[in-house]
């Protein structure tokens, strides 16, 4: 399955903050399907890239265009932040929030919430405050809250940073299932192992510029740029 929202085009996108260009210029087309992993060291511009794509970042120049009107495209995207944002409500209310604001009937919202709580193993915690969950549970809840609307495009900003192996495995299972169900995924990480496990396409960002873009096997087997080669070798990029 492919999403009609894609391809998405980033044309001459730059983001400048306090006189410093932190992203771009980026000229890129994201294809209709796949699991794109955005790799790069800390400070490379991965978060800014994702936020620019999602419309959370004010562009200094350029544009992002989807194959659908902007308002339609926005409604069919979901974003998971590096530090999960928990509403000061119960786990149940957090999970149901994206559906409740669409005005869906309570019974329908409840059914979806129960189903997702079961999937992420938080059934027993449904009526507990979400802010009291562990880091891994919060991130799983944030991911389920993003997926509960069946988004066509899912953007994730290092969702597994600082999580233990068990939580990483659970989250990767959810992401793989979403990908197989046809969700177009773009995810930032600096974990090479995770990138090898999940990616069908690689984007390598360094100092705000895309240095490598292509199918994952090719990128890993035959990197085209010295920067990405160094990154794969575990060298420190400055």
């Amino acid at each position, binding site marked *: 399955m492919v999403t009609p929202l894609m391809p998405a085009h980033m044309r001459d996108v730059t983001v400048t903050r306090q006189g410093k260009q932190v992203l771009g210029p980026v000229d890129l087309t994201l294809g209709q399907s796949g699991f794109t992993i955005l790799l790069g060291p800390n400070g490379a511009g991965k978060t800014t890239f994702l*936020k620019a794509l*999602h*419309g*959370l970042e004010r562009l200094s120049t350029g544009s992002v265009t989807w194959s659908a009107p902007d*308002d339609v495209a*926005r*409604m069919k*995207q*979901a*974003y998971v*932040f590096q530090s999960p*944002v928990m*509403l*000061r*409500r119960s786990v149940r209310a957090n999970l149901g*929030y*994206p559906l409740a*604001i669409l005005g869906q009937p309570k019974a329908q919202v409840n059914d979806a919430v129960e189903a997702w709580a079961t999937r992420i193993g938080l059934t027993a915690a449904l009526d*507990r*405050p979400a*802010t*009291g969950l562990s880091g891994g549970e919060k991130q799983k809840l944030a991911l389920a809250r993003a997926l509960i609307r069946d988004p066509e495009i899912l953007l994730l900003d290092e969702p597994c940073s600082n999580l233990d192996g068990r939580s990483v495995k659970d989250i990767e299972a959810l992401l793989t299932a979403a990908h197989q169900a046809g969700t177009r995924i773009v995810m930032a990480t600096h974990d090479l192992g995770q990138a090898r496990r999940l990616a069908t396409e690689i984007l390598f960002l360094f100092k705000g510029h895309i240095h490598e873009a292509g199918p994952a096997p090719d990128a890993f087997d035959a990197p085209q740029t010295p920067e990405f080669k160094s990154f794969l070798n575990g060298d420190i990029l400055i």
Partner: protein
Amino acid sequence: MNDIWAGLSSAFWLVVTGDPDLIEITLRSLQVSLTALVIASAIALPFGTWLAIRRFRFRRTAIAVLNSLMGLPPVVVGLIVYLLLSRSGPFGVLGLLFTPTAMIIAQVIIITPLIASITHQAMRDLWAEYHDLLISLNTTPTRRILTLISDGRRALLTAALAGFGRAIGEVGAIMIVGGNIDHATRVLTTSIALETGKGDFALALGLGFVLIALALTVNLIIHALSRTEREGRW
């Protein structure tokens, strides 16, 4: 010190004997202040939240003005409301001067900026936390305000209680627009002012203790009803 003991004793006997005058002015105090609180909260809570999330030209100026209005001198507010409601004023035809309604209007003007300002401070922090998520979920501005008000209700309760505290203890404005008329506009604070003027310090202090007890009771009831400070809550 004797005056304080006499005041405590006076307060005790007024309450124990169920003094009808005390009950009347206490109920009027509550009626005026709670009505003012409800009206002011209905204006200030959404306005303060809106101010926290909305970016517009002169926003900083608006916030500075709002914060300055927290210190509105009640006597000046009373005077302005008096002039507006007096027979020769623009709203004189309504005949509201020296009625509890005039007192409510004055109190609403005094406490709305206070509640709005505290609301703005609290909602600004919550908005910083929620901003990206709510924008990402494509929420409407109205939905954002409702979400912040709902999730920030503890802070908003504090704002409302601060407003109530200011209203129930206010004397300058309501003395001017209410006139302290017996069985019509007399409330606890204006009674205290009257008894002090008459030199009956024991009764004035007694009424003062009743006023403090009343404010404390209302605060405790609201806290109990809204279940603040309980484990596992926000």
